[in-house]
Every structure is written in structure tokens, then in C-alpha cells.
């Protein structure tokens, strides 16, 4: 196995104090300690070259999990192995093979050009000069930022900066690229570019990509596999279709009639209906497929009929809602 995580648990001790002025004074002398379980018995494994996405609410434990994968924090219980290294040992050889990109934090020198940061990376990671130049040119060209490398980082837009972050992380050809909310705060175009780049880079170089994001489009476009973490537990590990299949008993039907007929009596099995684009979108219970379709056909002449599964967004919303 390329990456193996077994029964990992992460507990945090936090100080709690009472509210208000009285609580603050009390807090000078004693503080209660509470134990919070951020990650609760998670196990999974990842093969080389896979693209895996972590989704879950804020505070579910995604960032904690990937920080444990990169060796920044160590698990309270359980074991993690990333290509035969224990990340928590933080050996130099291990560090040279992984890369971490964080969406809202930058590792570039703010006042200088991005090139200075790249050059520093070259020295830090012992990248041979020829390889460095080749990779830099290639990455800059693919991401369309060749002209911007010499400009100071503070003058770049957020999207351009994120591209530079990606370059600085990939210059030394890591085997694993870990991204924590890479597209946060970016405009639509930049988001699309980054997704496309990650997908293509993974396919070309077989670099394992592990990503967390709140934008489901990131996960849908880039990742083949989803790990859904809720309240510290791993509640699903599989493809997008599997998760939809597993968590949703509903199907989605869009129907539009030629004569603008309104649906007044809802057939049995319809969980919700709403108008959409001069027609209606119905969510129906999959078991009542036949019944509903027959009823719809009988109502009038159909102009358009669309049947499909639920969207990932809907499923995720449902799970957050309290499944």
C-alpha cells in the first residue's frame, strides 16, 4: 500500500472557562480541561496515483487527518504509514517526497518575486539546476504564468498566487501532493483552471493527490474517490456515485409539458416538487418510479423528460442536515 491509515484517533485537550467577568477572574487560577476527539477511529488506504478527496463540515476532522498524513501532528492512537515511512518521524527523505499546499496560507516571500521563492526551494530540496529549470518552465507554461514569475508576489491576484503555490510545491516532483482547500476565495475561472491542472498533472505524472475542499465541484472534477468525514468519523469511502447511491433513496425527474399543464395531484412517491425552467423538477422515491412515470405520462403530452440520480450537493446537504 502506498498510504495506509489504521484506526487513527486524535484527541485534543482544551481549556474551558466560564463566561463573563466572574469567569475570567476564576480563570486566572483554575481552568477545566476537556478532551475533544477530533478524529475517531479512521482507517483507509490510498494507492499510488489516486486522486482522493476529503469532504465534511468545518471541524469534522479533515484538516487534522491530512496534517497527520504530512507529519505535522501525530495521532493519539493508531498508525499511519506513507510509503513505508511514519510521517510523525519526519525524516528528511520522507519530507522530500510530499508536498503541502494550504489554501489560505502562503509560503512565498511576500515582497519579492515568486522566482526567489522557487530558487530557495531549489536549494532546500536539493533539486539539480537543470531539472529545476526544466520543471519550472514546464509548470509555468502549463499554468500560464511565465510572465508573472518575476513580479513581486504581493502584486499578484489570489488566483495567480495560488498557481505560484502549486508551482513551488511541485518543483521537486513529490510523490504525494496534499492540498487543504486550494480553491478557497478564488474566482470561477481560476477555480476551473486549478482543477483542470490538478487533474491533468495527476494523469501525466501519477502523483497521488489528496485534497480537502468545501467546493464539491473541486472534488467531482479532480477526485475519483471521496472520503466523507463527519464528526471525526469516516462515514463513506468510495466513488461519487456510490455515495449518492448509498445515502439517497431519491431520484430526480424533470418534466415539461407541451401545453403548460400544471401538476395538481402529486402522485404517490413524490417527496418534493418545484417549478423549474417552465417545467417541474420532482424528487421521487426510487421505489415508486413506475407509478410516478405512468402518472406523469397520463397527464399530457410531454415536451421533455429527464431522469437522473440526485446531485452530490443534495446528498451532502442531507447528510449535514442530520443523517
Amino acid at each position, binding site marked *: 500500500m502506498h498510504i495506509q491509515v489504521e484506526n487513527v484517533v486524535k484527541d485534543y485537550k482544551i481549556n474551558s472557562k466560564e463566561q463573563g467577568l466572574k469567569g475570567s477572574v476564576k480563570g486566572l487560577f483554575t481552568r477545566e480541561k476537556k478532551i475533544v476527539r477530533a478524529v475517531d477511529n479512521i482507517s483507509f488506504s490510498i494507492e499510488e496515483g489516486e486522486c482522493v478527496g476529503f469532504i465534511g463540515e468545518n471541524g469534522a476532522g479533515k484538516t487534522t487527518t491530512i*496534517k497527520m498524513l504530512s507529519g505535522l501532528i501525530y495521532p493519539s492512537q493508531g498508525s499511519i504509514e506513507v510509503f513505508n515511512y511514519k510521517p510523525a518521524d519526519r525524516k528528511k527523505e520522507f*519530507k522530500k517526497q510530499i508536498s*503541502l499546499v494550504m489554501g489560505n*496560507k502562503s509560503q512565498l516571500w511576500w*515582497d519579492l518575486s515568486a522566482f*526567489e521563492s522557487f530558487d530557495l526551494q531549489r*536549494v532546500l530540496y536539493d533539486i539539480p539546476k537543470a531539472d529545476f529549470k526544466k520543471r519550472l518552465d514546464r509548470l509555468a507554461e502549463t499554468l500560464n504564468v511565465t510572465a508573472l514569475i518575476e513580479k513581486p508576489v504581493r502584486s499578484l491576484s489570489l488566483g495567480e498566487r495560488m498557481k505560484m503555490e502549486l508551482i513551488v510545491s511541485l518543483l521537486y516532483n513529490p510523490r504525494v501532493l496534499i492540498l487543504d482547500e486550494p480553491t478557497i476565495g478564488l474566482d470561477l475561472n481560476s477555480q476551473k483552471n486549478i482543477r483542470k491542472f490538478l487533474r491533468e498533472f495527476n494523469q501525466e505524472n501519477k502523483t497521488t493527490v489528496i485534497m480537502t475542499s468545501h467546493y464539491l465541484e473541486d472534488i467531482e472534477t479532480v477526485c475519483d474517490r471521496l472520503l466523507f468525514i463527519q464528526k471525526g468519523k469516516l462515514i463513506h469511502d468510495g466513488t461519487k456515485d456510490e455515495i449518492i447511491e448509498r445515502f439517497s433513496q431519491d431520484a430526480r425527474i424533470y418534466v415539461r409539458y407541451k401545453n403548460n399543464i400544471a401538476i395538481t395531484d402529486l402522485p404517490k412517491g413524490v417527496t418534493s416538487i418545484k417549478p423549474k425552467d417552465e417545467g417541474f423538477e420532482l424528487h421521487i422515491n426510487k421505489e415508486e418510479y413506475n407509478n410516478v412515470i405512468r402518472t406523469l405520462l397520463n397527464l399530457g403530452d410531454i415536451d421533455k423528460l429527464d431522469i437522473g440520480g440526485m446531485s452530490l450537493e443534495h446528498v451532502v446537504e442531507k447528510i449535514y442536515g442530520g443523517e
Partner: protein
Amino acid sequence: MIKSIKKYLTIYYMFVRSCLMKEMERRGNFILMSITTSFLNLYFLFYYLVLAERLDNNFLGWGKNELLFFLGTEILCHSAFMATCFYNVFTLPDHVRTGSFDFLLIKPVNTRFLLSTRNFNFSTFSQVLFGIALTSYSYWKLGFKFSLPKLLLFIILILNSVMIMYLIGFTLMCLAFYFTRISSYGSVLPYRGFFAIYWFARRPENIFSSQVIQILTYVCPVLLIVNLPCKWMIRTTSPITIIWAFIFSIIFFLLSQVLWKKGLQKYESASS
């Protein structure tokens, strides 16, 4: 081994170069900082001049020029520290707070080295010139002749002093790991602690009683910082004290390394 040293030297050179480029970009601020820090030294200069005058040129056995030499030595130590270490030693809480500490941890290079050398401040470096001027002038006025070996040891002692100051600051900063809440006072605390300790080094040691001098030279050896190099040049020192100064730095460095490693473990177990 050699390759490793070369690599670390290259990294240090790149940091210094980047800081120089960064400061040159903001020329106005650079000039302003250089001027304002000179004024700080001027106030201390007035202080010593007034004292010397009021006390008939006899401040506990130190004449005016000796006081000036002392001030010059203090400026050299202080400004060398500010230029090389100050902006690194107290930045740990900020790194932890903003999350950039993770980036330092994840590089395949010694994290302590990266943290301690990242910033080099050129505007305070200009104070070194002031210190050199003041020490040279007062040394000449005192009638001493130039001696190269003496000067070399003086420089080495000052470098040692900077190392001791770095270690004091670094050790205090490691305490930041133990305050799990890196509040804004968590970042001010090591800084204040450092200056509280440094205050005991900033005045000629004669102001203390002889027992206190012994304590402050051998037990909590702050007097090794400014007083030792100064006395080496214009008074007498015992070779034992000089050797102790170097031994102390080594011991202190090893202790700080232990503290650092322990602090890192705490960070890893309780991050975010």
C-alpha cells in the same frame, strides 16, 4: 558533511540576500529606521555624558571615555543581535498563529535553523557602524595602542555575546510552546522577559556589589555579554572568565536544543 554545511551556508546567504532586496524596495523606511535607531543611542550617550560630568568624571572608577567605550560595546552587541537574531527569535508565536510554522516544519531542512536565520535586518545593522565609531574613538582617547590579537578576541567575544543573547531569547520563545494559547501576550512575553534579563547586562558591572557580580558572571552570566568584551579591551579580565564564556554558550546551546525538541513534541500533539 561538507555538502551539508555548504547547503546551510547557501540557504543563509539566500535569506540575507532576500532581506536586503526586500529592504531596498522600501528605501524610505530603511533610511528612517536607520536614523531613528541612531537617536536611541544618542539618548544613552547623553545619559552617560551627563552622569560623567556630574560625577566629576569618576563613575565608580570609570572615566568618561571608559563609559563611552562601554556604551560602544553595548551598541555593538545590541545592534548585532538586532540585525541577525531579534526578528527571528521572537517570531515563533506569530508563525504558529498564522500557520506558517507548518511550512517550516515540513521542509527537509532543520526547522530551528530556518526559524533562527530567516530574517536579517539591515537597518539596525547600521548601528554597528555607530558602535565601531564610538569604541574606536574612546579607545584612542584612552591612549591604548592598536593590537590585532586583542581586537580579534574582542570580536570573537562579541559574537559569543550575540550567541548568548540569541540563546536567552530562543529559550524564552520556546516557552511559547508551553502556553497552548498563543495569545498576543504570549508573543510579547518572551520579548519582555528577554529585555528584563538584558537590563542587567547593560550597565557597567561596578554598580553591583561584588557578590552580585560573582553571581551575574558565573551563575546567571549576563555580565558575560557586554562587560566581558569591554573589560578585555580596556581593563583586565581573568582567562577563566573568558573560557567560561565559551563553555557557557555551548552548554546553553545544548540545553536550548533539548527544550526545542520537547516543545516541538508538544506542538505536534496539540496543534491548531
